[in-house]
C-alpha cells in the first residue's frame, strides 16, 4: 500500500482526477429547518458534513453578552465513525479540533457582519459524518452555506479548498490518501476576489512553489463558490415558487 503512484507520469492522480480537478461537490441547504435557523448538508468527495446555525439568539449566560456585536461560537463534532476505522475515544476535546474551531471563528468573525446583531449569540454546530481529506476546506463551505440559509448578513461567500504539492506539481482538492503523502495548504477565499480569509499551512512547502499552489487553489475556490451559488439560487427559486403558489 505504501508506494503509491500519487501522480502518474501520464498526469493522473490516485482516484483518476487530473491535477486541477475538484472532487464531486454536492450541497443542499435548509436540510434541518426544525432543528436550526440555518442548515446545510455538504458532500465534497467523501467528506460528508452537516452544519447547523442557531441564532442570532439570546446568549445562554450573561458573561457572553457583548454590547457591540454578536458572539460567534463554532463547535466541530468529528464523529467517531467518520474514518475507516472507528476511533475509540471522542474527538471533542482534541487539540486539533480545538485549533480548527479557533481558526474557523477567526475566519468568519471578519466576514459575518456581527455588529448588526449586538447582544446575541450565533452558535454553529458542525457534524462530520465522514471524512476523506481536506476536511478544513469543506467545513468552511458548509458554514458559508448554513450562514446564508440562516439569513445572517455576510460580506461575501467564503469558499474553502485544500491544495497539495507533489514534487513540483500542485494537486487541487486533496483526498485523504494524498493528504498523508504530501504537504498541503488550506485556503479560504473571499467570494470571487483573490483575498484570502484563511491560509492554513501545517506542513513545509518551498516558498518558491507557494505562488503556483495559491493560484490553483484560488481558481478551485472560485469554482466552488460558483457551485455553492448555483445551489443557493436553485433552492431560492424553489422556495419562491412554493411561496407564490401558496
Amino acid at each position, binding site marked *: 500500500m505504501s508506494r503509491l503512484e500519487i501522480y502518474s507520469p501520464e498526469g493522473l492522480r490516485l482516484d483518476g482526477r487530473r491535477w486541477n480537478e475538484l472532487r464531486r461537490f454536492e450541497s443542499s441547504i435548509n436540510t434541518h429547518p426544525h432543528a436550526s435557523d440555518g442548515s446545510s448538508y455538504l458532500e465534497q468527495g467523501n467528506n460528508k458534513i452537516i452544519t447547523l446555525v442557531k441564532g442570532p439568539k439570546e446568549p445562554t449566560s450573561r458573561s457572553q453578552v457583548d454590547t457591540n456585536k454578536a458572539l460567534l461560537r463554532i463547535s466541530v463534532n468529528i464523529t467517531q465513525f467518520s474514518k475507516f476505522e472507528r476511533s475509540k475515544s471522542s474527538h471533542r476535546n482534541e487539540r486539533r479540533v480545538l485549533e480548527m474551531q479557533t481558526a474557523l471563528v477567526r475566519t468568519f468573525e471578519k466576514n459575518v457582519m456581527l455588529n448588526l446583531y449586538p447582544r446575541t449569540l450565533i452558535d454553529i454546530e458542525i457534524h462530520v459524518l465522514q471524512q476523506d481529506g481536506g476536511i478544513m476546506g469543506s467545513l468552511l463551505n458548509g458554514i458559508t452555506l448554513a450562514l446564508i440559509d440562516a439569513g445572517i448578513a455576510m460580506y461575501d461567500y467564503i469558499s474553502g479548498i485544500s491544495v497539495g504539492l507533489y514534487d513540483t506539481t500542485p494537486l487541487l482538492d486533496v483526498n485523504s490518501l494524498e493528504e498523508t503523502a504530501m504537504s498541503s495548504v488550506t485556503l479560504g477565499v473571499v467570494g470571487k476576489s483573490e483575498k484570502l480569509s484563511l491560509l492554513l499551512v501545517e506542513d513545509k512547502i*518551498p516558498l518558491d512553489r507557494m505562488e503556483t499552489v495559491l493560484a490553483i487553489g484560488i481558481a478551485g475556490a472560485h469554482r466552488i463558490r460558483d457551485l455553492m451559488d448555483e445551489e443557493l439560487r436553485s433552492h431560492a427559486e424553489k422556495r419562491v415558487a412554493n411561496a407564490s403558489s401558496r
Partner: protein
Amino acid sequence: MSASAIAPRRKRLSDGLTVTQKVFIRSRNGGATKIIREHYLRTDIPCLSMACTKCPEIVVPDAENNLPKFILSNDPPEFPQPIGKHYVVLDTNIVLQAIDLLENPDCFFDVIIPQIVLDEVRNKSYPVYTRLRTLCRDSDDKKRFIVFHNEFNENTFVEREKDESINDRNDRAIRKTCQWYANHLKEYGINVILVTNDRLNREAAETTTPNKDEEKLITKSLMQYVDLLPNSEEIKDLIPNLEPTNNQELIKSNNNVSKEPIFPEYYSTARIMGGLKNGVLYQGNVQISEYNFLEGTVSLPSFSKPVLIVGQKNLNRAFNGDQVIVELLPESEWKAPSTIVLDSEHFNVNDNPDDDNNENADTTELGINGTSNIVISDKDRRLLAKHAIEAQKEKKVQPTARVVAITRRSWRQYVGQIAPNSVDLQTGGTQNVFVILMDKCLPKIRIRTRRAHDLLDKRIVISIDSWPTDQKYPLGHFVRDLGGIETAEAETEALLLEHDVEYRPFSKKVLECLPAEGHEWKAPASLTDPASLAKDPLLANRKDLRDKLICSIDPPGCVDIDDALHAKKLPNGNWEVGVHIADVTHFVKQGTALDAEGASRGTSVYLVDKRIDMLPMLLGTDLCSLKPYVDRFAFSVLWELDSNADIVKVDFTKSVIKSREAFSYEQAQLRIDDPNQTDDLTQGMRALLQLSIKLKQKRLDNGALNLASPEVKVHMDSETSDPGEVEIKKLLATNSLVEEFMLLANISVARKIYDAFPQTAMLRRHAAPPSTNFELLNEMLHRRKNMSISLESSKALADSLDRCEDPKDPYFNTLVRIMSTRCMMAAQYFYSGAYSYPDFKHYGLAVDIYTHFTSPIRRYCDVVAHRQLAGAIGYEPLSLSHRDKNKMDMICRNINKKHRNAQFAGRASIEYYVGQVMRNNETVETGYVIKVFNNGIVVLVPKFGVEGLIRLENLTRDTNGANFNEVEFKLNFVHKETGKEREIYVFDKVEVQVKSVLDPVTSKRKAELLLK
C-alpha cells in the same frame, strides 16, 4: 478483500467525467475494515497511437502545460496474416516473469501496459515495477512502451461482479482493454495481441463471444508469441525457465513420477506471523560464509552473536542476502562454526543437470543432518532461546537455526559461466546446463539453453526464476552474453554487473538537462551584469573570489577536479584559508532527470582502466571541474585560522573563482620544497602545509585512527593498455595537506547543516566496533605475540595499534592494522533524525560530527550536503525532498549501498588486473599467514595486495596426517615438496610461490599460492 454486495452508483459530473465508488474490505490484525474510495472515470485518456486521428482531439495538458506524447508507432512490427501489424498488450505474469526479455532491444516493440497490470506488478515486486516504469519513460523512439490507464477510462473500466474474485476481475479488465484497443484501431489496420501465460485468461478471451461488431481477441502465450518473431531462435533462450509444472506441456512428459522433495516446504504466512509474535521464530538477513557456501549466519537483534545455519537443508534454498525467517534447532545440533573451506564450484562437480533426482550421498559426510523432526513446543522453544543466548557468551558452541521461510529474495541478475562438464557436446539441441556464478557464496544455477556450445568460455548474465522444493538447484534462464572469458571488456562489464553498477550511457532525457551552451559555457565576467542577472537571479548572492590565489592539488592525470585551496595572511597575523568545492548543484537542479540519475548512481566508480561517472562528462570534467586559468562557480568554505590552526571564524558562500594552477601531488611537493620559489602562491601553499600538519597532529591527539589496507595500484601501459606493474600506494605530505583541509571543511559544513536542519541533515557516521569483532584477532595476538588491542576508545585503540610492533619485522605493524581494519564497522551515510547526537560520532576520524561535502562531482551525498548548505546560508530555498525524513532515508540507503558496491567493484577490478600481471611473471614472494583452517591456510602477499587460500591438498600429500590445533592457531603437516614436517602458525612469515591460474571449473583466474 471480498466483493461488495451493493453495486456502486455512478454519477456523471460533467461531460467526460463520471464518479463512482470503489468499495472493498480490508482485513488487518483480525479486524475487517470497509474502505470506500472515490474513483473518477474519464473519456480524455488517449490511446497514444500515432496512427489514431481521434485521440489527439481529446487530450488535455498536464500541470506543466505539456500535452501527452503519442508514442506507439503508426507502422508497428508485422506478423504473417491473419495478425498483420500489431500492438502488444501484456499481462501481469509476463511482466513479472520476463522483465529481462521486455528490456531486450531486439523484441517487444509497441507495447501497451494496462494500468491494472502496472498496479499488480507494483504490489508484487517494486523493483520490477521501477524497471517497467523506466522502460516506459525511456523507450520513446525505440521500443515504444506506454501505460494505458484503463481503470480511469470510462470505456474500459469494469465493475467487479458478484462472487467474482479480484484476479478474475483484473483479468477481465485486461481483456476489456484489449477489446477496446482492437476496436479503436481497427480502421487503421492495427491488431492487438494479448500476451499472457495464464491459460485461463487465454481461454476466457477465446470463449467469450464479443458483440457483433467486435472481433475475437488474439491471445498468445509468451512461447507462442516469441515463436512468431523473425528472430525467435535467439530470443527463445531468454524465456524464463518456469517451474516444471508450467512447461511440462512443452518440454517434459517423461518425468511424471511424483518426486521426493529435497527441501522442506516453507511455513505458511499465518504460522510465521504467529511464530514471530510468540518469539519462537526470528527474522533476519542471511549472510553466507565467504569460505563455506553451505554455512550462513543470521544476525538477530536478540542474540549477541549471529546464529549459525549449517547445511543445505537448513539453509533451505536461501540465497546470500535474503531476508528469512529462522527457527532455532535443538541444543544437540549446536556447533562451532566450521573450519572447513567449501565453495560451490568445487562441490558436487559431477552432478548431472538433467537428473532431478540424485540423492547426494556426501551431504551426511559434510555434517549436514537433515532437518530434525523432533516436535518442540513453543514453551520449550523460548527456553531454548534463553539457552542459546547463554551459550553464545561461553565460547565455542554456537546455536544453530534453520530457515523456515523467505520473506524477501535478494535475487537479481547474476554473472557466471557455464560449467563445461555439464554440457553434452554431442547433442546440439536444448539442454540443461549448470551455470557457476562469479559470487562464490551462491549455488549453481540450472538453465535450459540451445546455445550451450556457443556459450562455453563466455561470461554470461543469467536471471533466476524459481527454486522449487524438488529441485536441488535453482532454475534460471539465460539473459545475455558479455563476451569471452578473460577479455578485458567482458570482465569489466561482468564486474560492473555483479556489483550492480549502472554503467550504461546517460539517457537522452538526462543529457537534455545539461546547459545548452555545452563546452562553451562560461561563468559571467561580472556578477552585477544585468543580462546575466536576468538569466540567473541567484548570481547576486555569489561572491567574487577571482582575485584569490587558488590552486588545486590532485592525483596526476585527474580531470574531475572537485576541490581547490588558497591561504592568505591576514593583517592580524591569522590565516585566511579557503576550500573551494565545485558548484555541482548549480547545474544539477533538484527534480530534474539529471538529479534523479545522479541520485540513483550515487557515486562514480573507479576501475583500473575505466571510470564510470555519476554525472555526465560535460559537467564532471569540464563545467564543474575547477580547471586552472578559467572562471568556475564554486561553493567556498572560508576560515580564519590562527597560527595554531584553531578556527577563529568560518564562513560559507557560493562564489566564482579562478584557479591559478592545477598541481599533481608530486608537483606541489616539488614547488613547496624548492627554496627558489617565493611567489605568493607558493607561500600560501607552504602555509597550508604547515597548518595541515598541525591539524593532523590535533586529530591524532584526539584519537583518530591510522589504519591500513593492502591497496595497490596497477600501472597500465599507456599504448597497449595492458597492465604493466603493480605498485603499493605511496603517500606524500601534499596528500595529507589536501586531506586535512577537506576533513576540516566536511566537519564545518556538517555542523552548519545540522544546525539548520536538525532532523534531516545529510551526515556520515562511523560506529565504534563491537568488541566481539576483535575477539578472534585479539586471541591470535595474545597467543602468538602476547600483544593485545584495546577497545576502550579510539584513542586507546590507536595507541595499542602503535604498540603492536615486532622489532624483527617492520611489516608486522601494518599487517595488524590491515587485519584490524577488517574488524571495523563500515562508515555510513545517514540523516540526522535517524540517530541521536552522541551516535553521530565518526570513530575513525575521532570527531563528533562529519559529512561529505568536498566531492560533489563523484558522490551524491555531497550534492545533498551542498543543497542543504545553500539552504542553510539562505542562498536558495531547500527543496522539500531533502527536508523529508522518508525521502532522506531512501537517499541514504541508496548511497550507502552504491558506495559499498563501488568499493567492491574497484577492488575486484584491481584484483583482476593484478591477476593479469601475475600471469606474466611467476615469482616467489613473502607472505603472511592471516588465517588457519582445518584444511588450509590463508596467506596475504603484501607486494600484490592479494590473499589466497592454500588448501591442505596443496600443502601436503598426506592430508590425514595433518593436525589442526584450533587453540594455538596451528597446522601441522608434512610438506609436500621437501617432505619435512612443518608447523604453520597464524602471523607466520612464509615464502610463497605466486602464480595466477585459470580454474578449470569456473574459468576464473585467481592467485594461486604455493608454500615454499
